[in-house]
C-alpha cells in the first residue's frame, strides 16, 4: 500500500504543533544545528583534512538531493560550483517565490514549521561559509513573510542567528525580502536582480552564473524552501541513510501538491518514486479518485508549465532489474513512478511537484487558454520570442474560446510555440509558456481543430444568412455584406 512518508512535514500537521520556537525546540529543533556547529575536522585516510563545512557539503552531495524548486538539479553539484576563491562574500538565498500554478507546498512549511526552514538554512549557510542570507518570498505571501520575520526574531533572541551563534564563532544574518508580485522572480537570476532592487530580468548565462556572479556579482546559492529543509534531514540522518529514502538518483521525500478533479486535493509528502501518478490520483491515502462517474482525461504532472499527459498514454521506460540489467518496459501514464527521471523519460517533468488532474468534464481548450493567459501576463518582456510569443498564443486561444476560432488554429499555435523554447530565450520561461501549448495541442489536437472548425462553420452560416437578407434589389449589383466578427478587444490585454 502506498503511503505518505512524512519527513519535512513530520510535525507540521500534528495536533497541537505550533510554529513558535518553543514548540520547535520541544520537538528536537535546532539540535542538528548544535551538532553541526561543533563538528570536528575529520582527517581522511590520505591525511587530507575536511572542515566541518566541507564534510557537510560532502554529505549533501552523497545524499543525492535534487532541487525541489522545479529543475531538479543536484543540490550538491550546485554547491560545488560556488566560486570559493574569489575573496568575495558568498550569499545564500532561499527561494520562497512559490508561484508556479498548482504549487502550494512551500507555503505549508513557512506557515506551519518556519523554524525547520531556518534551521535548514542556517546549516546550509554554515556549510557554504555564508554570513548573509536572504529569504525571497513572493509578495502575495504577506502572512508568510510576517511568520518568517517572527521566527527570525525568535531565533535571533536565542542566538541561533546573529553574532557568534551558540558560541561557535560563526556569524550569520538572514533577512526576509518580499517580492512585488511577479512570477519571473522565481527564476533565480531574475530573483537576484529583483533582490538588487531592479526589474527581475533574468540574466544571461554565460556569464552570470549565480555560483560565480550572483547577488551583487558575488558567488550565490539559490535553493528552494523544501530543498533547504531536506538539508536539515540529510545532516540529521546521514547521507547514506537519507539516500535510502526514495529511489536511486531520486532520493529523499517530496511534497506533492495535488489539485484538480480528485476527491481529496491537498499536499502529500512521499518518498520520491515510491508512489505512481495513478496512486497519487486514485489511492485513498492520496487523491482518493475522481468524482462519481468521471473518467480521467489529462494530468499536468509538475506545475502548469509541465507538458500535459493524456489518459491512456503509454511510455517506454528503462528500468534496471535486480540483476543490474536494463530492460525497457511499457508503462501506462498512471503507472509512472512519481520522480524526476521517470517523468522526464515520459517527455515531461515533475517540476515543482504540482499535479493538476483533469477529468472528462474539462474543456481543454479553455484550460490551455487559462494557462496561456497566465504566462502572457507574467512574461517579463525581456527577450523577443517569449515576450511576443506568449501573448500571441494567448490571443489566439482567447479567440478560439470566444467563438472566433479557425480549424487551422491548432497548427497556427504549434508553429508559434515551436519558435520559443530550446535555448531561444534567456531563461526557462520560454519553455514554461510554450510547453503547455505544444503538448495540449499535440495530444488533444482533435479538440482544438473541432473547436475552430465549428466556429468557422457557424461564421459561414451567418455569412450566408446575412448575404441572403441583404440581397440587392434586382438591377442593383451592390457588394455582398461581409460578415464581421465581433472584435475581441478587452478579451486579452
Amino acid at each position, binding site marked *: 500500500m502506498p503511503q505518505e512518508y512524512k519527513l519535512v512535514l513530520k510535525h507540521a500537521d500534528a495536533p497541537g504543533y505550533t510554529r513558535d520556537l518553543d514548540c520547535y525546540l520541544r520537538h528536537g529543533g535546532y539540535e542538528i544545528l548544535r551538532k553541526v556547529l561543533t563538528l570536528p575536522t575529520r582527517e581522511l585516510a590520505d591525511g587530507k583534512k575536511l572542515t566541518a563545512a566541507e564534510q557537510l557539503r560532502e554529505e549533501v552531495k552523497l545524499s543525492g538531493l535534487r532541487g525541489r524548486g522545479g529543475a531538479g538539479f543536484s543540490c550538491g553539484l550546485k554547491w560545488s560550483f560556488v566560486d570559493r576563491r574569489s575573496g568575495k562574500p558568498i550569499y545564500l538565498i532561499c527561494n520562497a517565490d512559490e508561484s508556479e500554478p498548482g504549487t502550494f507546498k512551500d507555503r505549508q512549511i513557512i506557515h506551519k514549521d518556519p523554524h525547520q526552514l531556518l534551521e535548514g538554512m542556517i546549516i546550509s549557510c554554515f556549510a557554504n561559509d555564508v554570513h548573509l542570507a536572504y529569504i525571497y518570498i513572493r509578495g502575495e505571501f504577506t502572512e508568510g513573510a510576517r511568520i518568517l520575520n517572527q521566527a527570525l526574531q525568535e531565533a535571533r533572541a536565542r542566538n541561533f542567528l546573529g553574532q557568534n551563534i551558540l558560541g561557535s564563532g560563526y556569524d550569520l544574518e538572514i533577512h526576509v525580502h518580499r517580492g512585488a508580485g*511577479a512570477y519571473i522572480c522565481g527564476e533565480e537570476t531574475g530573483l537576484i536582480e529583483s533582490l538588487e532592487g531592479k*526589474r527581475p*530580468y533574468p540574466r*544571461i548565462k*554565460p*556569464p552570470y552564473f549565480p555560483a560565480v556572479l550572483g547577488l551583487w556579482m558575488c558567488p550565490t546559492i539559490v535553493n528552494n524552501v523544501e530543498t533547504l529543509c531536506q538539508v536539515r534531514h540529510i545532516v540529521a540522518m546521514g547521507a547514506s541513510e537519507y539516500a535510502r529514502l526514495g529511489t536511486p538518483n531520486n532520493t529523499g521525500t517530496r511534497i506533492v501538491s495535488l489539485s484538480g478533479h480528485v476527491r481529496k486535493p491537498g499536499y502529500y509528502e512521499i518518498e520520491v518514486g515510491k508512489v505512481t501518478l495513478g496512486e497519487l490520483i486514485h489511492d485513498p491515502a492520496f487523491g482518493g479518485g475522481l468524482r462519481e462517474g468521471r473518467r480521467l482525461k489529462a494530468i499536468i504532472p509538475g506545475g502548469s508549465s509541465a507538458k500535459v499527459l493524456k489518459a491512456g498514454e503509454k511510455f517506454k521506460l528503462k528500468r534496471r532489474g535486480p540483476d543490474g540489467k536494463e530492460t525497457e518496459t511499457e508503462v501506462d501514464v498512471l503507472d509512472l513512478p512519481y520522480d524526476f527521471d521517470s517523468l522526464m523519460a515520459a517527455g515531461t517533468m515533475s517540476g515543482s511537484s504540482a499535479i493538476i488532474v483533469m477529468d472528462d468534464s474539462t474543456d481543454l481548450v479553455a484550460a490551455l487558454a487559462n494557462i496561456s493567459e497566465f504566462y*502572457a*501576463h*507574467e*512574461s*517579463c*518582456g*525581456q*527577450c*523577443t*520570442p517569449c*515576450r*511576443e*510569443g*506568449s*501573448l*500571441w498564443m494567448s*490571443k*489566439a486561444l482567447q*479567440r478560439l474560446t470566444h467563438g472566433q476560432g479557425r480549424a487551422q488554429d491548432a497548427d*497556427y499555435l504549434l*508553429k508559434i510555440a515551436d*519558435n520559443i523554447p*530550446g*535555448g*531561444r*530565450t*534567456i531563461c526557462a520561461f520560454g519553455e514554461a509558456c510554450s510547453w503547455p501549448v505544444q503538448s495540449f495541442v499535440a495530444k488533444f489536437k482533435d479538440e482544438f481543430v473541432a473547436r475552430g472548425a465549428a466556429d468557422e462553420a457557424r461564421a459561414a452560416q451567418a455569412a450566408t444568412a446575412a448575404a441572403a437578407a441583404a440581397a440587392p434589389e434586382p438591377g442593383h449589383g451592390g457588394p455582398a455584406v461581409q460578415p464581421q466578427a465581433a*472584435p*475581441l*478587444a478587452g478579451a486579452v*490585454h
Partner: protein
Amino acid sequence: MSQTEKNASAPVETFSVSVDGRTISVPRTMPDPQTGKPVATTMIQACALAKVDVPHYCYHPKLPVAGNCRMCLVEFGTPALGPDRKPVINADGTPKIAKSPRPAIACATPVSPGMEIYTDTPGVKQMREGVLEFLLINHPLDCPICDQAGECKLQEYSIDYGQSQSRFVEDKVRKPKAVELGPRIMLDDERCILCTRCIRFTRDVVGDDKIGIIQRGSHSTIAAYPGTQFDNNYTLNTVDICPVGALTSKDFRFKMRVWFLKESKSVCTSCATGCNVTIGSREGTIYRYEPRQNDAVNSCWMCDYGRLNYKWIGRPDRLTHVRNQGQGGTWATALHEIAERVRRAPAGSVAVVASARQTNEELFLLSKLAKRTGALTDSVPRLGEADRLLVAADKNPNGQGARLLGLAADPMGSNLPRMADGIRRGTIKTLIVFGEDVTRHGIPAELLGKLELLVVSDILPNATTAAAHYLLPGCAPAEKRGTFTSGKGRVQRFFKAVEPKGEARPEWEFLHDLIYNVTGQNGFVNMEGLFNQMAAEIPAFQGLSWAGLGDTGASVPI
C-alpha cells in the same frame, strides 16, 4: 586610449575557431568597450573577424551586452572530449565536434579553441525568421511615414532574413505614440523592439538612470522616470543607436527622407573635442549631424548641443558679398587693394586677430601674412563648462591649432589689450580680423574707427563687420575643406557638405590669393598641397600628410 594601446601592444594569445567552415585565428580576449580590460572574445566578434555578418538588434559594440533580442542566435559545436577528457579524433584525423543541442547568442557567448560556429544552417535561418516574425507582429508597419525608413534594421533584416507574408491575425498591442520623452526626443512605443540600447547607453555611457522600462511582457514601454524628462547632454545619441523608428529626433523628424541625404565626413566645431560627424544635407541645406565613429576621439557619440549647432549655417543674414568701403565690391579688386595697402604698411603697424575657429590651413596662411608684416597676433579664448564625457571647456574647435601655428598669444587673448592700446596710441593702423567680433573682446567700435585699414572676414554680420573697410565673406566649416587640431592634439580633416552662400569663398582660397598678391610667392592652390606644405614647415605637424590623416585623423604632441 592608453589602456587600449597597452592591450594592443601586449601579445594576446590566439587560437583557431571556424565560422561556417572557414578557420580563422582569434584572440582569446578583446578589450571591454567600457573598461578597456581584456574580456573573452565572443562569437559575434569572431564572426566579425571572419567577415561573417551576424544580424543583431540589441548588441552594440560600445555597450554592455544585453542578449535580449535573440536575433544573433547561432548554432555551434566544440571539440568532443572522451571519457579521458581528451579530444576525440575522427578517422580522418580531424577532431570530432560535439554539436550543441541548444543554440547560443553570438553576442554573449565566448569562443573556445576549436569551436565551430554555424551561421547559415536551416536551424539558424528558422530562428532568425522566428525572431523577426515576433518583432513584427505588434509593430505598426508604418514605414511610409517613419523617419527610420531607409536606415531601419527591421527593414534590412526583413529583406535579408524575413518571411514574405504574415500569419498574424490577432489585434496588435496598442501603445503610446508621439510620446515626448524629453525636450529633443520623441518616442513611438509601438515601434520599439525593447532592445534597451537607449537605456544602456544612458545608464552606462552617460551615467544617467533617467530612462527605463515600465509595464511587462509585450506591454513593456520605454519611459522616463515618472514626472521627469529625459534630458541630458547626450540624449540624441539614443536616436542614432535605436535600430528602429522608436526614438526620433524632434529636430529631424518629418524633415527629410534619409535616402535623399548626401553624407559628408566632417568634424563638430562646438568645442575643442572635435567629435567626428557625418553631415546629412540635400540641395545645399543641412538637415542633421550624426556622430561618426572615431575611437580616439568620440567613440560613436556626440553631445546634443554640438549636434544641433548647425542652424546658423543657413541663417538668412549670412554675409554673402564682398564689401569695399561699405560699397559692393569684387574679390579681385578687394584682394588687390588690400594687398597693396598691407604691403606698404610699416613693420609693427599691423595686427591680426585670427579666430581659433579658423582651420589649421587658414591660420597657417594668416601666420605667413603676419610674419611678412611683423604683426602682433592673437586669438580669442572661449571658455565654458565641461562634462565628464565629451564636452570640453574650451569652446574653440581649433585653439590648439592657433597655438601650434603661433598665432595665439600665451595665454590666448593676452595680446588683445595690447592691440587696443596700439590702436589707441596710433601705432597700430591696420587690423586684420578673421572670424571674430573684436568689439566684444576689448577692441570697441570707436577704436576700430581710428584704424586706417580694417580687413574683416566673417560669416555672420556683427559690429566688427559693420566697421570693416574691406569685408570678405567666409565659409562655415561645412562649406569648405580643412583640418582642425583638437584640444588633445588630434589633427582631423573635414570635407565640404554644402556650397558656400552667395559669393562667399573658403578663407584659405582667398588668403592664398592675398598672400600671393602681398608676397609674390605662389603657394599650393589645393588643400592637399597646402596641408602638406604646412606639415613640412610647422614642426608640430611634422610627418603628417593630408592623405595620411585618413578619416579619423592623427595625433600630434601638444
